[in-house]
């Protein structure tokens, strides 16, 4: 394999993992836009998506397509219940309190997952086979990687359509810009918040499900992916959708190139270092608008 083929491999690998980070980042963004908080339970949505696929496809032998949507719906429901229950009833709306509440809920979900599925990693069958595909640039990928790219692209299109062209999507964007104004024009802010958690649950589940055949899944797979997805969201500009994709891609490719060209031991350190560097230069992320402070 000559050098240009190596680079091509690094980049393709980076893009595929970057796509996952992008989806997770979008999940973080949706909740941030609706509520202003970071939902650390996003990590559990990812794990639960993967584990749910495992139960449905491997244990109950339900076809992959149906399992996909059932899992998405289930995790979405869990997200909604999380909002409707603990988050809604929290006495304080302080952002830091709610963030740590999501951390507490995340721990509860993770502990429950551990009880149900145990601690082992499990494999999930690939959506369409495992024979490597050889690309013209000299890199190889698995069919599952094509699914990752395809589904990520689809998700992007669907979300874009949702937020631009549907009433509900526009209402959500309105809530993100200014909650009071949105309420004044008749948007039910409570429903928007609920929807944001449900959507974010669905996105987390999708991320977990499409990566599971490649990486195996377990009750805590989502932690590192969630953390890096959050980093991707921040890198791209927290709350900005194009930023989520950009951040995800950059983080994924950087990690891969770092491992391949520099040092695999310091790959994560390099990625975070670059993140810090970007933040110091542009404190609101690459495409962020800046969090305005109410005086």
């Amino acid at each position, binding site marked *: *394999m000559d*050098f240009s083929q*190596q680079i091509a*491999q*690094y980049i393709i*690998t*980076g893009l*595929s*993992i970057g796509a*996952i980070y992008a989806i997770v980042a979008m999940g973080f963004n949706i909740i941030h836009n609706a509520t202003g908080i970071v939902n650390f339970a996003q990590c559990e949505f990812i794990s639960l998506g993967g584990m749910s696929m495992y139960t449905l496809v491997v244990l109950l032998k339900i076809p992959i397509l149906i399992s996909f949507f059932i899992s998405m719906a289930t995790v979405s429901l869990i997200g909604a219940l999380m909002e409707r229950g603990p988050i809604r009833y929290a006495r304080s709306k302080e952002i830091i309190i709610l963030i740590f509440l999501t951390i507490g809920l995340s721990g509860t979900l993770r502990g429950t997952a*551990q009880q149900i599925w*145990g*601690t*082992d*990693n*499990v*494999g999930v*069958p690939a959506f369409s086979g*495992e024979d*490597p595909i*050889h690309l013209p640039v000299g890199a*190889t*990928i*698995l069919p599952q990687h094509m699914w990752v790219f395809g589904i990520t692209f689809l998700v992007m299109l669907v979300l874009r359509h949702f937020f631009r062209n549907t009433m509900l999507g526009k209402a959500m964007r309105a809530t993100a810009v200014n909650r009071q104004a949105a309420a004044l024009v008749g948007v039910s802010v409570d429903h928007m918040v609920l929807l944001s958690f449900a959507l974010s649950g669905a996105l987390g589940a999708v991320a977990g499900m499409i*990566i599971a055949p*490649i*990486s*195996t899944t*377990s009750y*805590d*797979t989502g*932690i*590192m*992916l969630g953390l890096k997805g959050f980093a991707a969201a921040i890198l791209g500009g927290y709350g900005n959708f194009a930023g989520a994709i950009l951040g995800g891609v950059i983080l994924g490719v950087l990690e*891969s*190139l770092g*491992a*391949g060209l520099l*040092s*695999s*031991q310091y*790959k*994560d350190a390099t990625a975070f270092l670059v993140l810090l560097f970007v933040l110091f230069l542009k404190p609101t992320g690459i495409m962020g608008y800046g969090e305005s402070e109410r005086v």
Partner: protein
Amino acid sequence: MKGKALVIVAVSLAVCFMVGSPLCFGAEPIKIAGIFALTGRAAHIGTAQRDAVLIAIDEVNEQGGINGRKLEMVMEDTESTPTKAVMALKKILEAEDVAAIIGPTLTGTAMAMRGFIEQEGIPAFMHSGGDVILKAPLKKDDPTSLPKWTFKSPYKAADAMGKICEHMSKHGISKIGFLYSNEGFGKDGLKNVKVQAPKYGVEVVAEEAFEPKDVDMTAQLTRMNAKGVDGIIAWTVGPAMGIIPKNVKQLGIKAPLFECHGAGDPIFWTVAGEAGEGVMMPSTKIVVADQLPDSDPQKKKIQAYVKAYREKFNREPGTMVAYGADAAYIVVDAIKKVGADRAKIRDAIENTQGYLGISGIYNITPEDHNGLSMKDIVMIKATKGGWELMD
């Protein structure tokens, strides 16, 4: 009259209480502490080892216990962290009168507990993998201050590495890449391979690391492959055991893949799927019990144990189950010989010679608190959802 009788009865009962409950209320169980990683990042290993130890304990109790006393295991959870491991240790030492300790799981937790175990003076049979547990002196400035109360059941990681290198040199592999998980076990492996490989004429031409929870190692493998390796060793336990064979298959790398001595476990197949076919690794004999030659003295014992494990837990034992089992059996054996006295148990363990364990034949001496050698390790190949013993 009645009052006097009552007083006498009451006083005798009180005396009974004070003198010793075993005499009045039946034999007290002998307690052993089981400290494992039951939650946290090593939970899947810790729970498997706990199960392995439980089989041994149940077996002893079914046969009537030790001198009529039942064996009871008091368990604590290290949560896979050193601080909690030390707290668990102190808690057990306080709350219960335990004769010996079995565990822990992770090398980091073992190292944290070691100092306190030596201070307390209680025999501990560990099943953590790190050679450093027995090799690192207790005092920095005194290289002879080796642990007296600590023993270890897994064979030396160095020997496992040696076994792989020996196999490689027999099969004409001379340039290898070493892909390791960027934490204690993996880095230990890196040190080992640099020492062992030259002994067998093998050269390490590429070293790459990955984080334990990473999902894709194609970048590292690509870089390694570009250096023209004719063999790859992947040194990790956890999901990466399965991800790496998949990546190798994806990239179409032809060089044979070897994994570490912890990979011989049913979970390997769960995570690797079809890509696991043909991967080779060193292992304890427990996973290929039926393929052992009849002349192997361990065969019967291992087969019996595997049967009991299958019946109780409804799954196949992995290679690391052997470590937990041996730790339990050797400790129990010592207690059978000398009773529940800590110092005597320690001495008995230290003089365990020719013991037919599951991981191998143990010859423990004051200098070698592990007692296994390369002879006890076998090379196996992953094939068709199971394992094939290689010679």
